[in-house]
Structures are given as C-alpha cells and as structure tokens.
C-alpha cells in the first residue's frame, strides 16, 4: 500500500469501527507520512512499524472484547465461579507487552541519537521565530563563507532556501515567546525558545517547496504563522545567493516605483529593512523595529519578490495559476521557476493590497490603541497605516522591484 493515509485508515478505521472510507487527501501539504529527506525518512521508518504493531494489538483487543461480549452475554447461565485470577495468564499477558515495547524501544533510542547528530554539518543557518513569522539569517562565517560563497550575511524570512542533499543545521531560537519550527516532510519539530538555541537538522533530497507551520501556541495569530522550506539544486542555490547579495538598485526616476520608494522610506523603513536603501542625503537607512514592535524585528524586504509568500507565509504572492506553475513543477524545472520570482503579471494583487490597506484586519494583532499602553506603546505586528489607494499603487510598484 503506497498511500500512507490508506494504511493508517485501515488501522484506525478498524480500531474505531469506521472502516469504509475509501480514499484520503491526495497531497496534504503538511503530511507527516511523506518524507522528502533523510531525517524525515528516519522517523518514517520508525513510525510505520510502530503504528502497525499498535494497530495489530488494537485489533486483537477489540476482537477479544467482541468475543467476550458475544459469548458471555447473560443467557441464563449459572453464576460463574468466583475466581480471582490465574497467575500464569496474568504473567504471560504482562510479559508480552513488555517484549513488544522492548522491541519498539531499541530502534527508538538509536533513531533519537541519529537524529541528534550534528558533527557532519555542511551549512549553518540561524532561525529566529517571532510573533508571527520566521526570520532566517545565513551567517557569513565558517563553511558558509568558505564553501557557499556567503561573503555577507543574508537575512530573509518566510521561506528558507537550502541546497539539495546538504546537511543544513538550523539554530532555532525566538525573540519573544516560544515557537516551533516544523517542516513535516523534512524533519520533526523543534521549539524555538527565547534565550536558548536548539539544533534541528534539515536535508532535502528533492528540489521543491515544503510547507510547515508553527506548532507551539504563540499568541493571537498562531494560526497565521507558517513557513516553507525551499530545496534548490546547488547551481540554483548559488544563483539565489548571488541575487541576495546583489547591490540595491533604486527605481528609475519618474516611475511610479520611485514614488513608492519615497513612500517606503517615509512609512515602512522604520521597521522593514531594505539593504542598501539610502535617504535623500545618501545615508544608509537602518530600520529600528524594536522601538515600535514588541518582538523587536520586522521582515527584511530587500528581496521580497524572490519569495512567493508573505506575512508569515500565510498568503501567496503569486496568483493561483502562477503558484501552481512553481509549486507543481518537476524537480528539474523547479529551480528555474522558483528563481524567476514574482512578476507583475503573476502578483497576487488582492491579498497584498488588503494587507497594505489594513494588515491587522487580515491577520489579528494587538493594534487596539487601548491595549498599546499595556505593551509599552509597541505594536505586536504590523499596524494599519491608513494608506490611500494611490499610495498603495506606488508601494506595490516599488515592492515589485524588490527581487
């Protein structure tokens, strides 16, 4: 049986007495039974037999109950012997589960240690959770700089890009509350705890997009805190790195995008960094989100349009058709389609504009002015900026050039 859902159902179905459900979701994006990398496979190889054993034990117990209920119902038989038990039966029935559990325990222990292995790491990435999105930074030290050409640190968010068949070590932490990083098809989850660094290893064996979601309850917009991991072939990854490190290109004078830049400097750059963006006097602008936001950070928008989701990976930057082209691309074509980024035609105008119009309405955040006082006047996420439609046009035009 190839479809894991089917296999599980045949067990759970028998167990719960509701078999008969013929099929399941063809492709759940966060399915825990479709590993796409060695770490998830290790888990999968362990959980399949365990579920099977559990299912078999379950079926035996249910059969026993059913038999007893059928066989010994009151049909007027005499009152049974008042026996208090048979030690032999009891010892046997205690030893059997002990043996089964020992059988489960041994591979479990070895898998735990295999998954925790970090000494052959090839790449290190810092992953930082905050309310309600993930920031990734690629430090420019060690192997990252020596072997992957990271002359400068890269800071990005929402979508984590890693090279194919590479043992990537995530150093997961958090800026505010506890979050949990989870890409089901690549590995189990690991909490990002503020003040601590937890290690999680990812390795993707096939190019593609792997979705995940924050699984530790982290406040108001917990359900909108998603993430994706992008696995690229090595060459595509190098191209991605080069693009990330490319210098800032200001929009051409007189274009709508140039208006957008001015507006961006005025409205957005307080929190959102665009590397290389300079003010009128030519001073580089460094955003200072910690003055305005409780978490102390806001996503870096330098290369926004190279990612294809936004706002904690909750909404697509691509329209449905363009999205399918990228997400369903074959492993060979995927890299090129992903690197193409978001073009003007493909931009999901609806969600992005709604977001710019009134972010907290789309994604709940404490921006209720009466509650601001209680968090020291700091926002919990993006506030409603009160932009006009013209301003939004300009901003969208500007953002479209952030590739």
């Amino acid at each position, binding site marked *: 049986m190839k479809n894991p859902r089917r296999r599980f159902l045949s067990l759970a179905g028998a167990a719960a007495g509701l078999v008969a459900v013929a099929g399941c979701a063809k492709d759940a994006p966060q399915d825990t039974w479709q590993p796409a990398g060695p770490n998830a496979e290790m888990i999968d190889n362990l959980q399949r037999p365990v579920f099977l054993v559990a299912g078999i034990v379950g079926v035996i117990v249910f059969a026993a109950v059913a038999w007893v209920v059928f066989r010994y119902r009151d049909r007027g038989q005499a009152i049974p012997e008042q026996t*208090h038990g048979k030690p032999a039966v009891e010892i046997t029935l205690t030893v059997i589960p002990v043996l089964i559990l020992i059988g489960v325990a041994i591979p479990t222990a070895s898998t*735990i240690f295999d998954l925790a292995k970090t000494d052959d790491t090839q790449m290190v990435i810092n992953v930082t959770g905050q309310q309600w999105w993930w920031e990734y930074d690629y430090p420019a030290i060690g192997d990252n700089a020596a072997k992957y050409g990271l002359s400068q640190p890269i800071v990005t968010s929402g979508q984590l890009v890693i090279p194919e068949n590479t043992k990537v070590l995530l150093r997961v932490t958090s800026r505010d509350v506890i979050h949990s990083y989870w890409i089901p098809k690549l590995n189990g989850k690991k909490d990002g705890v503020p003040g601590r660094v937890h290690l999680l290893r990812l390795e993707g064996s096939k190019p593609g997009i792997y979705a995940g979601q924050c699984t530790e309850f982290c406040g108001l917009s917990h359900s909108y805190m998603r993430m994706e991991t992008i696995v690229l072939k090595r060459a595509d990854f190098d191209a991605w790195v080069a693009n990330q490190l490319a210098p800032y290109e200001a929009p051409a004078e007189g274009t709508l995008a140039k208006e957008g830049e001015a507006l961006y400097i005025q409205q957005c750059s307080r929190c959102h960094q665009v590397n290389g963006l300079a003010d009128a006097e030519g001073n580089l602008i460094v955003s200072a989100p910690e003055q305005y936001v409780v978490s102390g950070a806001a996503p870096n928008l330098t290369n926004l349009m190279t990612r294809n989701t936004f706002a904690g990976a909750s909404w697509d930057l691509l329209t449905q058709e363009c999205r399918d082209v990228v997400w369903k691309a074959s492993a060979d074509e995927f890299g090129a389609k992903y690197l193409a980024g978001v073009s003007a035609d493909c931009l999901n105008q609806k969600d992005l504009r709604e977001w710019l119009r009134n972010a907290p309405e789309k994604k709940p955040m404490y921006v209720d002015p009466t509650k601001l006082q209680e968090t020291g006047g700091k926002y919990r996420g993006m506030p409603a900026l009160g932009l006009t439609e013209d301003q939004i046009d300009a901003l969208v035009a500007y953002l479209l050039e952030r590739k």
Partner: protein
Amino acid sequence: MAIIERPSTEIAVAGGATVGVKPSEALGVFKRPGASNSWRDWIVTVDHKKLGIMYGVAAFVFFIIGGIEALLIRLQLMGPDGKVLSADQYNQMFTMHATTMVFLFVMPMVSAFANYFIPLQIGARDVAFPRINAFGFWCWLFGGIFLNTSWFLGGAADGGWFMYAPNSSTLFSPSHGIDFWVLGLQITGIASLTGAINLIVTVLNMRAPGMKLMRMPIFTWMALVVQFLLLFAMPVITVALFLLSFQREFDATFFDVAAGADPLLWQHLFWIFGHPEVYILILPSFGIVSEVIPVFSKKPLFGYPIVAMSGAAIGFVGWGVWAHHMFASGLGPVSVAVFSMATMAIAVPTGVKIVNWIMTMWGGKLQFTTAMLFAIGLVVQFTIGGLSGVTHSVAPSDTQQTDTYYIVAHFHYVLFGGAIFGLFAGFYYWWPKMFRKQLNEGLGKVNFWLMVVGMNMTFGPMHILGLQGQPRRMGVWTEARAGEGFFNIGFWNMIASIGSFILAVGVLMFIINIVYTHKSKRVPIAPLDPWDARSLEWMTSSPPAEHNFDAIPTVNHLDEFFHRKYAEDPNSHEIKQVASAEEVLADLNSRPDEHIHMPSRSYWPILVALALPIICYGLIYNRLLMAVGAAFLLLTMFGWAMEPSTASDDDFDPPAPGEGGGHTKELAPLG
C-alpha cells in the same frame, strides 16, 4: 446565626441572672447551626454525602459550560476561515475549555464520587476532617466561579491551559485573563490539597474492622492512589503558579528572558504536575469500571491485587515521564531517550488493567446495563487512546505528531473516551444509591450510543487531521492550504464538528434522563440492591442515613456484600444465593451501634473559603480590597479555630432536641 440575644425573655423573668444564657463555647458571633431541611443545611453541611452531591452538581454545570466552549471551537473550525470567534476569543475558548474540563469538571466529579463513596465503601461514618472537607468544596466552587468571572471582566485567560512562559507574561497577554487563571487555580488547588489529605487519612485510618487494604474496593484503591498523586503534584503547580503570579502582579523576573531566565523552567514545573494530573483524571474512572464490570459479569475482578498494584505502579512511574510532553522543546537526546523509555514502561501497567477487565468478563454472565455499556466503551476507547499514546512514546515519531490534532485525538480518547465514560458508568451505576431512583435504561442506552458515535466521530478524524499536519490551537484554517482531494483537512474538520454535536445531543439525553427519572411519577423507587452489587456501599439504605450505617459491618472478604448474599454449595460447587440484600441489611441492623456521634455543622468553612476570591480580586484590581479580604480571612480563621471541635448539646441553634439527640463526633482542633 445568632448574635447572642436569646436570653432576653429569661432575663426578664429571672431578673438579670444568666439563667438560660449559655453562650456558645465558641468565641465568635456565630452559633453552630443545627440540622434542618432548608437550603441552609447545604451551606453549613459537613456531611460527606451532601458535599459529594454538591461537588457533582456544580461540576456538571461546569461540564456543560466547558462543553459549550468546545462546541464553539468546533463551530469555528467546521469550515475554512471560520468567523464564529475572533482569534482572541478562540484562544480564550480553548484555554478555558481545557481548564474547565480538567480542573472544574473531571477532578471535582472524581471528588464527588470519592467523597460520597469512599466512606461508604470502607465502612466509615464520615471522612476524617469533615469541616476541612466542606472548606475544600467551597474553595473549589468559589475558585471555579472566580475563574469564570474573567469572561465578564475583560476576557478570560488566553495562554492555553499549559500557560507556557513567556507567552503568559503581561507583555504578551495584557488582559487580566491570566491573572484570573493563576489565582483561580491557586484557590481550587487548596481544595485538591485538603481533599487529598482528608481522603488519605480517611482511607488509612477509618476502615471498618477487617477491611484490610487488600480488601478495599478497587475504586477506593484508585482514589487513594489519586489522592497521593494530588498530595505531591499540587505543591509543584502551586510553586509554578506562585512564580507566575509574582511575575504578573509584582514584576518578578522568573520568566523574563531578557533578565537571563529560562522559559523551560515553567514547562518542567508544569509537567511535573501535569503528567501525574493525567493519571489523577483517569485512575478514578479505572476504579469505577473495575467496580462496574465485576458486578455485571457476576465475577470478582480478575487479578484484583494486580489491578490495585498496577494502579499504584502507574501512580509511581507517572512521576518519571513528565518530559515526554517536551520532546520537541530541545531537551537533548539523552533526556529524550530516557523519558521515551520511561513512557513506554508506563504502558505496561496500563495494559495490564485492560487485560484484567477483559479477563473479568471472560467466562462471566454479562448484563448490558447502561453502566456496563459505558464501562465497555471505556475499555475499547481507552485502548485506542492508550495505543496512540504508545506511538507518542516513540520520541522521533512524537516530534512529528506533538502539537497536532493527533495529540488532541489521543488525549480525548483517553480523557473523554476513558475518564468521562467511566464517570458516566458511575452515574448510572450509583444513581439509585444516591437518589433512590434508577435512571431510565432505555434513555440511558440512547445516551450511550449517541455518545459513542459522537465521540468517535469527533475525535476519530482528528487522528487523520493530525497526521495530515493540522496543528493544534489554530483558530482558522484556509482552503488554500488544506490539501487536495476530497478527504482533505476540510472534510475531516466537518466530520469532527458534526460529531461534536451528536456528542452534545448524547449528553443532553443524560440530562433528559435525569429530569424524566425524577419528574415522572411512573418511575418507581429503586430496590435496595438493584444491580446485585458486591461492595459495602450497597449494604445500607438508599440513600444512606447521615450516619451511613446503623451498624458498622465487620469485613471478612473482598466483595463482602456479595459473600453475605451468596455462598458456594459445598456439594455441587455452585454459587447459590443464600440471602437477599434486604435480609443482609436487616441482619446487620438488628444490632445497631449506640451513641453514634456525627460531626456538627459549621458556618466557618464557607466563610473562610469566601475570603479567598476577595483577596484575589483585590490582588488584581485594588490592594485595599485585598486588605479587606485578608482581614475577613483572619477573622473567619479565628472563628474556625475557636469553634470547639466538640460542640456541646446546647450549642445549637435551635438547640438539639432531647438528651443525646443532636450529636457531634469527636473532631480534633484541626478538623
């Protein structure tokens, strides 16, 4: 209450002499209340049976509240982009649903059964500390009400019942909800602690002659284990709650990461309490079905000592597995491996119980009453929950499933399919004992089947949802990321939501059943021993008199009552009935005990308990109010301490009738 004014007429008559002026020995404004039939008696009662009933009624009200919260959650998740609740309301809803069900329904419902039946099952006249018992009940009730008033005072707690730091700090949860949660649980915690001490002492010290530990009914056994768990688990959560309340109310730094704190401290403290808590919730139900199954199988419990000992073993090992709730929180591989193994170990005693229940039924003479059906329902559903539990003990697999709906499915199979089904078995089984009438069996079976279907339809699909990757505690899901195909997240969420309403109708049937049973004239008074039961609580009138037994029986067997009714024919080795229940009771009561002393009613428990929420409101809103509450507490505690443990006969209002009529029993000053 009577401020002393009683003597006025006598004074007039006797010219100022204090004839008839017999102020209470108590140093306080209140005289001891006497027995009466009015509502007042419920306020001042220290009778374990009355308190048990009050626990039960109040807990059931909270069950309905928690159920409504659950239905709102399922409504919200029924379709994509649910609009029933806002994100904030959703967070409050699931926090309070769990808190209510755990602390305000299952735990007190267990207290209800334990209070009512432990003294009866061990042949005692009351618990060891009746006033403390009453105090515990009022603490719990006021704590629960206090907790729920937060709905009307700016929103309830929104941090999840696990209340992980630092999300629970004022910065991330600025409303007062968590303050109410922390303080409310402190108050209910007092109830758990006093209840634990009280019941342990009762069980260890007040057993009838011949009632050895290994002759105790299994429900009493399990309840005893639970009380020990409570005794040692409550102080741990108390510490955690103190730390959190100091952080929120007085700006302490315990969970302030910028000051160098470690948020995992909370998780460890919480789960050191939280995991034993799971057994606190489930073991009493194990006890109940271990009573029910033998009765309706006409066989003693198979392997009684092993069931008792496995309960104790669960209680013991339960302390060593808390970190399996934290496999994803970065403990390090060694800790994870150790806790993973320990968790597997705890599956063994649990499995033993299931085996023993099946073996009890094996070769029996099964009667499928509603109580028995619920018990069998527990055996089946708990097995599913237990097996999914075993899949969690495999830590790597758990890192995929933890915090997804798979976990939600797991613990609802354990807690709803297990604990709550057990409680319902108890309702049907013990109803005639408590209320003289048997609940209708027909309605009962409808109730059972609706609950079974509803329960499996609600929580069964959650296994699949979890494995498809739907995390817990998310207030909305979107079509865009629900997966493709017909059987995607949307489909299963819909099924679960429909199931939850079937479940709700099932619970409604129970309420209808109660109303029908007690309102309909056609329902007769139940016979003395409707189920042909086995243990001591059935060897007295229904409901039992205030003093429980006219004569305390001497116990010679496990299942003493059964052995007084039945005997083995020495020739044919057949079990033959030798006496009816009525005959057994008549025989016992033919030599009634004399000078039965029962505990005196008291106002103090409810008054002392009342001071606590006042202090807590003060802590949240106004320190002056806190001082008022503290003064009130001081005053009432003084009153309690000065109330004589042994009230004299004239210390009643109205005075106890006749010589030796009212009656108190010896209560020591702590009582």
